[in-house]
């Protein structure tokens, strides 16, 4: 199975006049421009590199939105829903985690994480997911796994909140006030994404 969109002619943003104003405003902000205040240039680069692997996404605009979402969430005073005891708060965990990944990269390949090949970056993430990186400076199995989970959660949330990705996957997107008239199996409303002829 390929990684191409089955709906190349569909653009969810072309439907935006049908959305309620609040939703339209919220969604369009994901297209930028973004003003970063919390994450340094290097930290943004790290998040983007990680997101490239986690979300399998190559477009810089989408990756920048993902980094911006991470920044927004880390800057919020609200809680993080749940955390394991002994694991630092999310912001601390993630920012320290970026440094740790860089240090691990330097220890193993004598260069920073961002200078690694993509396949090497991917391998780091696969190890992080199961807690398989060196257990130094408090980075035990549990903490590595939690870092992976929190990062993956933020990155994937942002990725599938981007309207370009909605278009690609053939998601109807915001549907208020219009709703759906034809919901039965096999039926679609005239404006919904349709597969391209050749697929």
């Amino acid at each position, binding site marked *: 199975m390929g*990684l191409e969109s089955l709906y190349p002619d569909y653009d969810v943003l072309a439907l935006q006049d049908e959305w309620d104003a609040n939703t339209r405003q919220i969604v369009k902000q994901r297209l930028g421009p973004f003003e970063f205040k919390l994450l340094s240039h290097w930290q943004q680069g790290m998040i983007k590199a990680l997101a490239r692997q986690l979300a*399998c996404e190559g477009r810089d605009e989408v990756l920048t939105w993902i980094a911006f979402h991470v920044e927004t969430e880390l800057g919020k005073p609200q809680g993080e829903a749940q955390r394991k005891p002994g694991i630092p708060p999310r912001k601390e965990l993630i920012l320290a985690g970026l440094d740790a990944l860089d240090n691990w990269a330097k220890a193993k390949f004598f260069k920073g994480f961002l200078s690694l090949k993509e396949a090497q970056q991917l391998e780091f993430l696969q190890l992080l997911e199961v807690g398989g990186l060196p257990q130094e400076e408090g980075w035990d199995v549990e903490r590595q796994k939690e870092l992976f989970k929190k990062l993956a959660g933020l990155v994937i949330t942002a990725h599938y909140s981007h309207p370009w990705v909605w278009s690609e996957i053939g998601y*109807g997107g915001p549907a208020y006030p219009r709703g759906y008239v034809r919901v039965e199996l096999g039926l679609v409303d005239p404006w919904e994404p349709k597969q391209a002829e050749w697929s």
Partner: protein
Amino acid sequence: MAEKVSVQHNCDHYDRERHPHLRKRKYGGQEVDAVIVGLGAAGGVLLYELAKAGLSVVGIEAGPFWDPQTDFASDELHAQSLAWNDTRLSTGQNALQFGANNSGRGVGGGTVHFTGVFYRFHESDFRVRTLDGAAEDWPITYADLAPYYAKIEEEIKVSGPREFPWGAFHGPYPYPERSPISGNAEIFRRGCAALGIRSTVAPLAILSAPFDGRPPCINRGFCNQGCLPNAKFSTLIHHVPKAIGLGAEVLTDCMVTRILVDKGGRVTGVEFNHDGQFYAQKAKVVIVSAFAVETPRLLLNSACSQFPEGLANSSGLVGKYLMPHSGHDVYARFDQEIRLYKGTPVLAVSQDFYETDLSRGFIRGYSLHAHGARPVGMAVKAATNAGIWGKKLREIMLHWNFYARITLVGEVLPEATNCVTLSEEKDEYGLPRAQVHFAYGENDQKLIAHGIQKCQEILAAAGGRDAFVVPDSAHLMGGCRMGKDPSTSVVNEFCRSHDIPNLYICDASVFVTSGAANPTETVMALAARTADQIIAQGKR
């Protein structure tokens, strides 16, 4: 991103007055008949019923008074703001996820972003000890709740099938069943039919025809993000505004931090915090309806010299016997488009595996739901709960319109070790954060395995392949269970605490067992029954 903050933080609401501050209180400084902590499913019903009976009542809610038109959006990410996001420490083999997965924050509580599946419990759910030799019996039976189930269904016009084949209630429902059903629901029903499993259209707290100035559902599928057209019931749009019309006062963005106790050991009201300032509300009766984590937390955090182990806790059981439902999702790919995003998420269900059948090797059972999905929900859970990310996830999501999904609602047996306690960490009010421990037991695991297998069979029978499973849980119940014996339960059959005669605890925390059905109709029926009892007591 300077996301527009459209929530208007008015905090005081009564008699057509609304104030962004607490300087014009209706009942400030007075002792009211009752104060209710938390205006979710239970709190909303209690507020309404008590106000209707002419009692002076104040509802205090930690979150905002949402305006669906400006505060909700057709967007998954935005909807995360509707959840109770305060950090809870989560431990155990199957540590629970909170936030949007579990609790709402704001008027309506969990009903704002619930899916609207509206079930009665079965008769057996109240007698698990007697029938299956495990857990505990409730101090009430199905018959005690039956009139309240009927009352709630009628009041909010539940829509449902002409004939509901399971449990003690077979319909009819006040409003006709939803029609048409979604592609995903259709696939589920076809798979069930091929295997001889009975299925029906879901009973829903979602309108199938106009009611009370509200339109029927337009099938946007955003029920878990808050319903914009108000087709889905919530106490935010039903009970609470009606209660205000009947004289109740509602305080929002007000976090109750302590229940106050006099020297004689009776409660006298609550302390709450608004915008960094502490206030008090005096009341003859205090009702805690803050949901399964915050209710025990508040009772424990209200420890005082009279009750050093926390309020209503002479049994030591406050916080214990917490139960989620197992809520595993099974996805399978089809050759035709299913389009999981369309239509009310749950439109078809089966309870053929609800009751104990010992030949399966475990007791109790589960419900099965054809369950829609949206991209963020599907992708994030796949990545964090099932280890599906990167290229594999992208490939699945590029074909996500070809996936169908069935979700399990599995009974979880109560265990004392699954509990809410106080942690060492403090929140912004200086109160210890909740720590929640959870692990499935052996029976729960067997039940889950059976349920997953059934989901896979149904999907395969309908033509699905390449199935994958995303472990998940849903709903929370227990933590202040009801019972006859004060040494083994926290409240009596009317949700009154055994220890303190004017303290009531009424929400999902009083559940003794979890059943295999979504809990909110039972929460609301219990609240209506408790309200009747409080009103009757007041008249005496």
